[in-house]
């Protein structure tokens, strides 16, 4: 029978190991880099792109709403981690005027459709290309998200996995303004 003291030491050891592992994984998942947008406050370039479920999607059709334009891909792990949060945000702020729009940078649409169903994505997703990447200053790493105000101007750009708390505060701020 293990002594109570040994049991206590073992428990403490396990707790410390768990804590260190959690801190390590958290630090890893939060590796992020936010940089100022060059041309911030400029009008987000308009585009028409094919939706993964058919039809075409035009950015300017959402003028008057706050748009979170998310460049992502199915093979991008931080993008996958963000998606459930984006689904929640879309639900939470839809009535106040938030529209999330996903731009997949996958090379083909098949895995994107599967992902869309698996994650129960509740916002439109279009297939991106090199041209739209260049229009937005080069999408040369994923994820990259642009928060666009009701007047079509870019409010902020996030490179890398987004801190959801920060993003939600920015969304609220953008939703609170009329323009």
């Amino acid at each position: 029978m293990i002594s109570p003291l040994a049991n206590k030491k073992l428990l403490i050891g396990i707790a410390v190991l768990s804590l260190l592992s959690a801190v390590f994984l958290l630090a890893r998942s939060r590796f992020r880099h936010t940089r100022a947008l060059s041309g911030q406050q400029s009008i987000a370039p308009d585009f028409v792109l094919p939706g993964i479920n058919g039809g075409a999607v035009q950015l300017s059709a959402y003028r008057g709403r706050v748009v979170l334009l998310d460049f992502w891909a199915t093979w991008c792990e931080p993008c996958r981690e963000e998606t459930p949060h984006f689904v929640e945000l879309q639900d939470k702020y839809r009535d106040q005027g938030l529209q999330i729009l996903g731009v997949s940078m996958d090379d083909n649409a098949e895995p994107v459709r599967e992902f869309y169903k698996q994650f129960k994505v509740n916002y439109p997703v279009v297939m991106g290309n090199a041209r739209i990447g260049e229009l937005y200053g080069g999408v040369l790493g994923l994820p990259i998200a642009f928060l666009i105000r009701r007047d079509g101007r870019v409010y902020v750009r996030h490179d890398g996995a987004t801190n959801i708390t920060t993003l939600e505060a920015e969304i609220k701020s953008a939703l609170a303004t009329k323009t």
Partner: protein
Amino acid sequence: MNCNPNVKTYSLFVLFFVVAACLCFAQQASQIPESRRIDADELVKILESARGEKALVIDVGSHVLYSQAHIPGSEYVGPASTENGLQLLRKRVQALPRAQFIVIYCGCCPWTHCPNVKPADDALQALGFKNVKTLYIPTNFGTDWVDKGYPVAKGD
């Protein structure tokens, strides 16, 4: 040894957590030894040097990203996180001498999240290539290559 059932359960939980974390990291770029990494400035010097060993530079990431910007002279094979991409990589290097200097790169995501370079490195090691380096891109190709003013080409 008799052990408190709570400790046993907790230990199993921690063991599961550690194994899951190890499996998660197994395919990550951070598993590539530092000796097989190359920094951007070092690669640029090699590419610009008229003398010395010529490197075969291969992009093993996304084609949409490659089309926007890539290292001049680099070849695109496909994302090495997919079986198709790996096959194209193997096919490209199949006939080369095993001493060929090969540099692979991606830059789609932060180094710790890149799904492509580790499988590509594994495949080249398995084929017996002895002189393979992976370009170390901490954040992404835009931040660590393009924004730093290193040479860039566009298109297919």
